[in-house]
């Protein structure tokens, strides 16, 4: 069968709900998109460690300290699970763990905009747990129906672990929201700082050719905007209920059109942060990753040396 026919057959299968395993034949285009998507997902989990990790030493009581350690550990664990998926996909290209992590240090793979930002206060650490994890969970839940079975299986596990993250994030925020004026002010300030990063997190309004291709292959089944709308529907009422002000006076729900209207984030500014690693904390955090990669080469060598 020529490759044109194979491709058509493949697309017909995935569009009718078939799942693909790592050893199945797949078009190069499908493999490339999966590698790109899951590699970015994996390194985003790993880069997501740093903003919260900074607050582990400062966590204000024993329970918070333990919970934050466990939560950050889970992020690293998700990175591990996802890297393994990418490693299997990238094996035909001779790429393994070292290369995939080197790509991060060398700026060849991007990570989510939110992890380029600064976690300035304990409220920021809490808000990351509540809203950024909330956004990530909506995104991940939408990928549960992906056509690539190994990814779907791992996402199932990731989502199960995220249910602790959700409760933990809410609990931290609720404590601050019920607290002193100083605490509430800290929380409002945090929402102001993160709001547009959160909106950007779901990606541009228009469906790019790459995104179109992912929908075509059923790697994704929802558009960016659909997911953003779902996030707003679930979280805006709760943000309001805490007495917080969302820094967007135009934000409202149109019940006739059944959609949220909002002021768009400055797409270009945020895009630059992601594509050029030019966020407030991009370089500092990549340097931490570089430390883990470079300073431990001797350890990894020793681990694989025949004694």
């Amino acid at each position: 069968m020529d490759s044109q026919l194979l491709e058509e057959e493949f697309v017909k299968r995935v569009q009718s709900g078939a799942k693909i395993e790592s050893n199945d034949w797949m078009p190069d285009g499908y493999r490339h998109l999966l590698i790109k998507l899951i590699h970015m997902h994996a390194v985003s989990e790993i880069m997501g460690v740093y903003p919260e990790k900074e607050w582990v030493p400062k966590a204000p009581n024993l329970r918070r300290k333990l919970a934050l350690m466990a939560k950050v550990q889970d992020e690293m664990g998700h990175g591990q699970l996802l890297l393994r998926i990418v490693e299997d996909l990238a094996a035909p290209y001779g790429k393994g763990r070292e290369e995939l992590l080197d790509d991060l240090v060398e700026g060849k793979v991007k990570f989510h905009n939110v992890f380029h930002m600064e976690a300035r206060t304990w409220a920021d650490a809490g808000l990351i747990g509540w809203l950024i994890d909330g956004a990530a969970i909506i995104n991940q839940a939408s990928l549960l129906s992906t056509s690539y079975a190994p990814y779907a299986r791992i996402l199932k596990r990731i989502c199960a672990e995220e249910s602790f993250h959700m409760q933990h994030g809410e609990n931290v925020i609720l404590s601050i929201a019920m607290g002193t004026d100083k605490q509430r002010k800290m929380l409002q300030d945090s929402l102001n700082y993160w709001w547009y990063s959160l909106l950007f997190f779901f990606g541009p309004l228009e469906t790019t050719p790459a995104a179109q291709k992912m929908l075509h292959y059923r790697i994704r089944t929802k558009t960016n905007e659909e997911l953003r709308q779902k996030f707003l529907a679930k979280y805006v009422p709760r943000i309001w209920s805490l007495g917080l002000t969302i820094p967007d006076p135009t934000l409202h729900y149109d019940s006739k059109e059944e959609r949220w209207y909002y002021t768009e984030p400055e797409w270009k500014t945020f895009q630059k942060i992601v594509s050029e690693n030019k966020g407030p904390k991009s370089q500092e955090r990549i340097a931490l990753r570089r430390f883990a990669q470079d300073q431990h080469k001797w350890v990894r060598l020793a681990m694989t040396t025949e004694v």
Partner: protein
Amino acid sequence: MEKQTEPSSVYEVFVQRDHLDPMIHVGSLLAPTSELALQLARENFTRREQVLQIWVVPRIHIQSAEEADFHAREMDRSYREVSGYTENGRLWRMFKEKEITLEEIVRYVEQKKQSKNDLHREEGHES
């Protein structure tokens, strides 16, 4: 003199029933080679069901923990469990809201049947 045959060894058998399921251990069998172990596993373990994949693994290649203490989890770890945060529901009620659960999000994103509560929430958006 008869020729000495290869002694059979133990293979552990795993099957996967659905793309979203993990490999599940279903038992073991004796076979002289891994090729034959795989063929025998098909009839010894899955003759009555449709499966997606079968794995056979030589038992000698399986490393397992010998000490019970290896698995010890003795101290309180509720800080890393959903069950450690049951107060969230009560706290949200003070703000006239309710906590979000993962199940609710998955159901909502996949647009499966929504609970009355979810629908009610969406109607109440125009504030």
